[in-house]
């Protein structure tokens, strides 16, 4: 008992001492509250204690101190939506590429650019040199009230506004001065405000990025675990000069550079697993490190995607769009869980939750089917992007991917993929009118591309390497997921997988030999048995 009390007392003293050391104010004597997460409390700046009549006015106030920020943003993909792949020479970026979700930005700017890191990109004439149109708040908001609704070309709503016009729905204006006074570091919420909702809704596009990652549990993402390691996106996507590391145009499929260390010059991608964990992270089982010479970490450590309760789109068939009900109105159909699986304006969807990825060799080389590329196999499947990789090129690992399959419009005469004008409250917007040729004529004109007037549909595939939603190690894939017949790596060639692979010849000969031994033994034994019944003399003693 006494000892127990002594321990308790000791613990109490320790606790008191710790709290004394941790709170700085009593020592200083002045109990002024102090922020330790930043050296600048923006709510104290006079420049931000005012009314703002537009979002760009806020940016001007930011730039008064942060003089280089806009220029830094101007250099990034987040601003330009343009990217020249140095390996393939392909001109990529959201500005021009097509996908098999909402298809294309051209002629749909006001809707799509709600996720542009700027204000006012409503048509092709947007001024990319404008500094005040850089949107600081979308990444640095900490209040969660900052929103950029689609249709406003990336502008937030400052005064109560009817959106879309004529709908009777009022979007409340936000207190942008409050947002500006409370700016801070980027967070899962700020990055997620666009990246969780890519493809037009929560979880639609990536499958491994959706709103469940805003405050995930450990099982969903061991790094972002809100009550654990609590990583933000930027913990891995280390940003310098406002340029966020990591890319889907030039991903790092195999990182040979190892960990990033202070003092070492690191030009490699800081967002890879290896940049922290190195290339031989399994301490107990060296065998698993050997696996890592063939497998991306993600292959075992992300057993499934869309695990957070948000479904991702797996298929999107534009060719079924356009149905109307008896009254001529657009139709929406939902599945038993209330998720949309058909919309007149978009076509039919297949959704997936807890999806097992597909697997392929990937070396980081991504090629797109561009707006100018000819579609030669219209009866086959057009790959919106193709992932390069071979088992023997020394650059490839086996990666998990979400393969997004769909059907979308193409021009059977010009043999190119088509860019329809979808969003827009006008005469040609497909989502309003459900007329393909008018919508496509507008879209293609805006993109500066030819259109024959004919519309066909072609099957497409798009490949999304899976890299988020890393599970805790105890939830990583077990051996038997791949080491068996028809396992996860059933279609992946170029490796010998015990349990999946065998030499047919050796097996046939081997079992043949065993059978021969067995039959021979049985035959021999049978003959002994038969001959024993009819003794033919000899030494019976040994018989």
């Amino acid at each position: 008992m006494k000892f127990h009390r002594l321990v308790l007392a000791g613990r109490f003293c320790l606790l008191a001492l710790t709290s004394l050391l941790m709170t700085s104010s009593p020592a200083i004597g002045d109990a002024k509250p102090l922020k330790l997460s930043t050296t600048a409390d923006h709510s104290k700046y006079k420049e931000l204690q005012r009314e703002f009549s537009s979002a760009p006015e806020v940016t001007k106030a930011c730039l008064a101190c942060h003089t280089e920020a806009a220029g830094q943003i101007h250099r990034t993909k987040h601003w330009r939506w343009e990217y020249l792949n140095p390996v393939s020479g392909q001109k990529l970026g959201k500005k021009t590429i097509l996908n098999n979700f909402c298809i294309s930005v051209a002629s749909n700017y006001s809707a799509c650019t709600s996720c542009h890191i700027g204000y006012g990109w409503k048509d092709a004439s947007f001024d990319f040199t404008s500094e005040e149109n850089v949107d600081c708040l979308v990444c640095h908001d900490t209040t969660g009230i900052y929103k950029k609704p689609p249709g406003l070309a990336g502008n937030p709503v400052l005064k109560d506004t009817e959106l879309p016009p004529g709908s009777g729905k009022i979007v409340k204006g936000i207190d942008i001065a409050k947002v500006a006074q409370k700016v801070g570091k980027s967070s899962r919420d700020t990055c997620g405000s666009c990246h969780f909702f890519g493809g037009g809704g929560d979880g639609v596009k990536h499958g491994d990025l959706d709103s469940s990652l805003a405050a995930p549990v450990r099982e969903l993402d061991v790094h972002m675990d809100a009550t654990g390691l609590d990583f933000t996106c930027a913990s891995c996507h280390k940003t310098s000069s406002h340029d966020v590391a990591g890319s889907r145009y030039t991903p790092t499929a195999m990182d040979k550079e190892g960990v990033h260390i202070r003092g070492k010059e690191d030009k490699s991608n800081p967002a890879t697993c290896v940049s922290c964990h190195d290339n031989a992270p399994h301490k107990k089982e060296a065998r698993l490190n050997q696996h890592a010479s063939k497998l991306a970490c993600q292959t075992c450590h992300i057993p499934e995607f869309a695990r957070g309760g948000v479904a991702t789109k797996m298929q999107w068939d534009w060719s079924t769009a356009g149905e109307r009900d008896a009254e001529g109105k657009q139709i929406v159909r939902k599945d038993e869980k209330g998720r949309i699986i058909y919309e007149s304006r978009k076509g039919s969807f297949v959704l997936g939750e807890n999806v097992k990825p597909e697997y392929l060799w990937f070396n980081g080389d991504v090629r797109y089917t561009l707006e100018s590329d000819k579609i030669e196999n219209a009866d086959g499947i057009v790959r919106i992007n193709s992932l390069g990789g071979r088992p023997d090129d020394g650059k490839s690992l086996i990666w998990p991917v979400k393969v997004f399959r769909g059907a979308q419009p193409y021009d059977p005469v010009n043999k190119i993929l088509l860019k329809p004008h979808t969003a827009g409250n006008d005469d040609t917007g497909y989502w309003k009118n459900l007329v393909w040729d008018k919508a496509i004529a507008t879209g293609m004109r805006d993109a500066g591309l030819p259109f024959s007037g004919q519309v066909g549909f072609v099957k497409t595939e798009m490949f999304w390497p899976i890299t988020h939603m890393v599970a805790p190690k105890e939830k990583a894939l077990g051996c038997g997921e791949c080491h068996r017949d028809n396992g996860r790596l059933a279609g992946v060639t170029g490796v010998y997988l015990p349990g999946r692979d065998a030499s047919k010849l050796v097996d046939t000969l081997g079992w043949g030999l065993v059978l021969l031994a067995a039959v021979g033994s049985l035959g021999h034994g049978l003959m002994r048995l038969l001959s024993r019944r009819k003794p033919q003399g000899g030494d019976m003693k040994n018989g």
Partner: protein
Amino acid sequence: MGERVYLFKGFERFWHWTQAALILFLMLSGFEIHGSYTLFGFEKAVACHNFAAWSLVGLWIFALFWHLTTGEWRHYIPTTEKVLLVAKYYSSGIFRNEPHPFKPSALNKHNPLQRLTYLAVLLLVSPLLWITGWLYLFHGDWNAWGLADLPLAPVAIGHTIGAFLMLAFFVSHLYLVTTGPTMTSQIKAMITGWEEI
């Protein structure tokens, strides 16, 4: 009751039965790893297989020491003496209840066919299994050993070939055990050490 001879010493019997159990278990888990059936599940099968393999290594260290220090290794020196006679016995004489042309003794306990068979297992099947098995066990260290370019397939297939040969030996061995003076006299000998001849 015939003559009795003490053929198998205590350690030898211990070695034989432990090795038999380990090899049986290695075959059982090994063919699961190979994909022939599901029993323990792949992960457990690998763990068991590795454990049994290491146990066999340990056992062999003792067995090797015993064979070398006692001179028992001489029982595996091949000979052609009487080999044709013994072959003829198993292919015809045995069906006519003829006596076995070879009489085992403590100094010469294996008949010439046994000597040849055990030596073949020792010199051909075992090394194939051991070399490929070691490589398999240390797959994680291939890079460090400078074997980064060695594909797994030949190692795995070599190990499988060894396993089939061992299994074929095992099946024949099981049967030939019954061909002593009585059906059970040889197995009794390996249990008690004493063989009736």
